[in-house]
């Protein structure tokens, strides 16, 4: 089999973009580009931005969720980690068990009144910047169980994204996480931090 290289531009056939870029790169690497072309080349490829936005971009793309499965939604959260809907393609596969190492709390499942102080404590132990996703109907708004035993998460901790569903499909959770990522990359202060002009949360120990 013979490889035919299109060294010359054939009249009547416009060169494709990839080939042009390839030739340009070759010229640049060999030092064959002239001043103007080189300046234009560099300008096209360098992105200037602020440090904030660069950091926000990096933070959004490397969220470390915490393994916080409470009930049924936890099984669907495990499905998100599974091979079909792979959360690792977005970079979020590093689920940390320790709150000190995680920055995303995915509250998956119903929060009972016995568990609420525990959840709050763990949220407080996470270091800034941190975000919380209320996955499922139960932690957002008590879901199916509007009774004495369940607390909606908004009552004791700030939540950034609510993902509806009972349980939400893994795709829905993925959508929620990506929405959070967009929010972080665009404007980290959006949501409750901006609404209440808050820098973070503080744990209030009763009786202290």
């Amino acid at each position, binding site marked *: 089999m013979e490889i035919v290289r299109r060294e010359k531009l054939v009249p009547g056939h416009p060169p494709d973009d990839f080939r042009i870029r390839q030739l340009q790169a070759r010229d640049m690497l060999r030092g064959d580009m002239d001043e103007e072309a080189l300046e234009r080349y560099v300008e096209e490829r360098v992105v200037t931005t602020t440090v904030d936005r660069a950091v926000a971009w990096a933070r959004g793309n490397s969220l470390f969720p915490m393994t916080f499965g409470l009930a049924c939604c936890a099984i669907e959260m*495990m499905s998100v980690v*599974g091979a079909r809907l792979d959360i690792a393609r977005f970079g979020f596969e590093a689920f940390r068990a320790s709150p000190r190492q995680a920055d995303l709390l995915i509250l998956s499942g119903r929060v009972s009144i016995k*568990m609420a102080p525990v959840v709050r404590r763990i949220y407080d132990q996470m270091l800034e910047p941190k975000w919380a996703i209320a996955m499922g109907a139960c932690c957002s708004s008590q879901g199916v169980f509007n009774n004495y035993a*369940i607390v909606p998460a908004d009552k004791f901790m700030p939540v950034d994204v609510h993902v509806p569903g009972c349980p939400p*499909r893994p795709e829905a959770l993925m959508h929620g996480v990506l929405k959070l990522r967009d929010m972080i990359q665009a404007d980290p202060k959006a949501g409750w931090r901006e609404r209440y002009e808050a820098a973070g949360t503080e744990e209030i120990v009763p009786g202290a």
Partner: protein
Amino acid sequence: MSDVDYRTLEESIELSHVPTAPTVGESGQELLTLNMGPHHPATHGVLRLLVTLEGEVVRDLKPIVGYVHTGIEKTAEDKSYWKVIPVIERMDYLSYYFNAMAYCGAVETLLDCEVPKRAQYLRVIHLELNRIMSHLVWMGTGCLDLGAISMFWYCFREREQILDLFEMSSGQRMHTRYIQVGGVFEDIPRGFDQKLREFLAIMPRRVDQYLDLLNRNEIVLRRLRHTCPLDEEALLALGVTGPLLRAVGNPWDLRKAMPYSSYDDFEFAIPIGTEGDNYDRFAVRAAEMKESCKIIEQALDGLPEGPFITTDRKVALPPRHELATSMEALIHHFKLVTEGFRVPPGEAYYPIEAPRGELGCFVRSDGSSKPARVHMRDPSFVNIQALEPMVKDSYIADLIATLAMLDPILGGIDR
């Protein structure tokens, strides 16, 4: 806010009035009480364990539950019988068909309602699929605890196939409310049969592949073989049923002993173990997955024609096309959707064989359209009592392995 000095707060707590537990263990080392959970990677949900350790040896264990108590039984008293099904399904959240089956069985007992044969077979198919799915999640997360992390992805790959089948028959992946009082919600769609057969063709081989990975793995064998056995007497006294009891050699299985929903039409074996250690618990569940495949195949081959829900219009909704032509159908539909059917007063306890053991549902009705008491006898709630005798005087690593092999589901424990 004032600075909270945790150190002074802790030092100010006076404990001299609390009777002290022994501080020195049998071999003379100091006893340390360690709190595992409720947030812990290895506790399969929000289980809190107060472990008293002497070095690495567990001397005492106290499970503390209630961290996901949802008040399901109380909520169920507030809803009409039909509407209880979605609520009760969310109890043991890995075996949702079983929860619905136990509840519907109890209500059907009280109604003296007959379930058509086709519905029974469809129920069996979905129950056994749920059993396989529950065992897959158990195997995935259990091996994750042991350190064999790859198993997680393999098991969840099969689980996705089963969830596709559930989605095909009922529209939902989890908590499908497919099993209704009197039968099932809807007949299986075209293509379900073929897709299920494709799944059944590969599933037994997949189980063999998993066992190939694990059965000759030195680490898995060393962690599971001869660790934390418990004898049959103790298990029966503790009320343990299911794969834990079968691992010891007692072939008690409600599907064979007191068959329900046409289980006696099918031929399948009950895998039992010999020693009752962690490895037997593991092997019994793996073998059960293959047996479930056999049951599903037989049910699919022998699926009879007929209605998929009882024809008693006072209990089950009439088919939609009848609503356009029949006045009675319209009235029945209206009554069922607004008030629900009334169940004559009585009490019934309906036990079935769930993936974790005997799941029983107790329903008391007082003649109205809402149940007066619904109680689920959850197998994990009773099985968790066996954890302490099992891990006493074993290493803490064995505690993790035993907890993985015990397969507790906190949703069922706490309800």
